[in-house]
């Protein structure tokens, strides 16, 4: 599999979760593990550009795919990715534990919906739990990131794409008694 553009050999243990493989075999500890049952979204990474929960995948399932982790967004201390920059500007993080997962989800969200509506923002981050911010600043960060990304997007669809939801939220469907249908 490729991780952040570099090829890596397959994990020796076929039972290894992708999250554990990234953290403990490759030393990419920016991917966090908050629940290990696919609800909190802390472990979100991009698989071929789409957000997935790395705690719900075996590492071997990522063979032949491109994995992007938080470390791959602005490699080597280069300028922050617009989504990271927006989180900074909008105080979209406090303890920072859920942050890598949120950032990766938002990268996926904005790839799908470059100009998201308020509802698309809420839905797009509704697979990630944050216990610190109350989400207000994260919503602002998503909106800000869309602005920062706009000049970088060659051909933004003015209405935003309406394709399949990029986020793997299979486990959040039954969550949250008040979640909108």
């Amino acid at each position, binding site marked *: 599999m490729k991780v952040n553009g570099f090829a890596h050999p397959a994990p020796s243990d076929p039972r290894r979760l992708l999250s554990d493989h990234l953290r403990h075999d490759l030393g990419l*500890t920016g991917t966090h593990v*908050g629940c290990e049952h696919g609800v909190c979204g802390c472990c979100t990474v991009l698989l071929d550009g789409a957000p997935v929960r790395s705690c719900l995948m075996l590492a071997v399932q990522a063979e032949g795919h491109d994995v992007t982790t938080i470390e791959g967004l602005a490699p080597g201390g280069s300028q922050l990715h617009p989504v990271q920059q927006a989180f900074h500007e909008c105080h979209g993080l406090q303890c920072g534990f859920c942050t890598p997962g949120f950032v990766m989800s938002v990268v996926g969200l904005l790839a799908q919906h470059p100009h998201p509506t308020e509802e698309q923002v809420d839905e797009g981050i509704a697979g990630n739990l944050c*216990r*610190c911010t109350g989400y207000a600043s994260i919503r602002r960060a998503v909106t800000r990131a869309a602005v920062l990304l706009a000049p970088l997007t060659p051909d933004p669809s003015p209405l935003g794409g309406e394709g399949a939801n990029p986020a793997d939220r299979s486990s959040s469907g039954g*969550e949250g008694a008040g979640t909108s249908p």
Partner: protein
Amino acid sequence: MTTRWFGARVQRAEDDRLLRGRGRFTDDIDEGALESVLVRSPYAHARINSIDVSAARAMSGVVAVYTAQDLPFGGTDLPILIPHPNLTHGRTQRCLASEVVRYAGEAVVFVVAESRAIAEDAAELVEVDYEPLPVVITPETAARAEHLVHDDVPGNVAAEMVQEKGNVAAALESAPRRKHFHFRYERGAASPMEARAVWARWSDGERKLTVYDSTQSPTSIRGGLAVLFGLPESQVDVIAPDVGGGFGPKIMLFYPDELLVPYAAMQLGRPVKWTEDRQEHFTAVNQERGQVHEVDVGYDDGGRVLAFDDDFIHDGGAYTPYGIILPIITAGQLPGPYRVPNYRVRFRDMYTNATPTSPYRGAGRPHACFVMERTLDAIAADVGIDRAEVRRRNLIQPDEFPYDVGVGWQDGNTVVYDSGNYPKLLETALEKLGPKPAGENVGMGLGMYVEGTGVGPYEGAHVQVLVSGKVVAATGIPSQGQAHATVWAQVVADELGVDVRDVEITSGDTRRFPWGVGTFASRGAVTAGNAMHVAARMVAEKAKKIAADHLEADPADLELVAGAVRVKGSPQRGIPLAAVAVLSNPVRYAFGGGTEAATQFTPKARPGPPLADGEEPGLEATGYFSPAGSAWASGCHAAWLRVDPKTYRLEILKYVVVHDCGKVINPMVVEGQIEGGVAQGIGGAFYERLAYDSDGQLRNASFMEFLMPYATEIPKIDIEHIETPSPLNPLGVKGVGEAGVIPVGAVIGSGIEDALGIPITEMPLSPLRLYELSTSASTSTSTR
């Protein structure tokens, strides 16, 4: 003083590495550590007949297996953190249980192995023969005392306390109107996104123990470990690195792993780590909020409270490691911002076969607030005035401070409010809330609170100007996301006249600052913030003194501006702070940016030794701040909400927070604290419930079933700051960490009652519970 940085929306210094995935949380630290797991009791109450670890020990890859009898401290009860004379039957657990377990999740065996997977497999080979005992799970069943949690604690009562101001019996007797209420608030869980973790290494050569711990109090952990292992404190370093949220339960002395991991590292000569998984976090980490209140209130025809008599039981859990601080806070804060001329409060702290309790954001206050605010709403309905008016008539007025509530406080003094403007909070909130939105089943929620913040005893700080001109500063208390590295830098930068980006803060690392207490009780800004201010001011005075010698000026004529010490009114006469740092250390070597600037001054000789009597080298100082009393924050929350009459789905249409945390160091950070607190309050009021069954099993110990809110459940929060500076500290600040959460249960309860017309006397609620309440004949009594 200059206030250039204080009060500004300075963006956070800590963000960059966290955003790049370069944070350093405890589980990120490896260095070849052995990994460990705890075998925990599946029973809420059982006698242990035998423990067989032979199969686990024999397993390949297992390095060590510890039971209580394998530990030199295995027979020692863990400490009671805050003893109190009324805690007549305090009980704490042992590091590993060997005779009786008293809650599901209590640690019994500790397994260390070459990998986590091996440790998990070995843990499954441990055989413990349990003999189940009767379970006491709610505070009500504890009070009935048909069974005992501790054989030697009669009635399951750990502590009882009665306090009275005025003459409640007489005032109730003579009150024109009188009502009785029963209120019930259940346990909740803080659930930080990072569960707990500990990593430890013993260096035999240096005889040094290094511990990384996701704790809110590394200084206290260090002190405790030093005593336990017979080491001088200098040989124990405890670091709280990045901590993924705390909210209270990450401060405990001790969770078993905090002793076991360092002990195993010392015994085995290899680093050892332990990382909690989410499921065990649900039962192994302290919880809070379970209380049942019986209230008798007397009032006049205008709705003015004349007497308030509250008798409540507190669900303490299986042990009382944290003393009785929670019910003491509840008792002290129950009157809130209101005049209660006659007040009596009695509480009993009850043992139950559930996870022990200790403060969780709000710490005794959300339940106190719920009781008082719901009572006021009922009084308003009874005398026929609106809910804002009943508060208006009872609020303490701005000219009444300091206001003595007349009962005891957690610091041992009495509750004395130092400052505030409660009517302004209420009127501003009502104004911001605006008129009732159109539609059916819309209700108004209203709740006011006070919060005693910034309790002592003290915190300290070390501030040093380096020869580069950069400033480093450290304090003992760690951060769990509160932006300490930013806000302390603002405080220090103002005193030293430097750019905030030139100040680097270290917090929660005993190698850099070994003294202090911890991050809890909304005390960081008050205690450590003011300690930073004190230490930075000492450095500034020292800089002026050194510069005065070289500028041939009076120190009183000097100021620290733009990275230099300058003569006031003559900005060209100055010396860079970096050069002052070089001059502060009279030696003959020098590197660094300030050296060149300093050399032109160094030849200037003065009589006497280079380091005069009483002088110390280095442009640095250590300062402390110890508050005389709590700084009392306050606030008013108001909301319009709608409840779907068929599905009982809750929709919060508007949510307003008007609050007073004194002088605001960084509005952006304070708003983040408020927004996060309100969200946690909404979760605790309507979505999250710890579903214990009668056997003491937590039936929903996962995020699939313990429903923490996502963005889709949390509304926009409209915030306004009212600043009434605290007179009790130089910065005039009050704490704000817990404020957001405190009145939310009261607000949601009030709004739902208004929307549906059914009495709300319990927390948490849910669509199912609202359905039950709406359809049952007896609407005000819990079915449990």
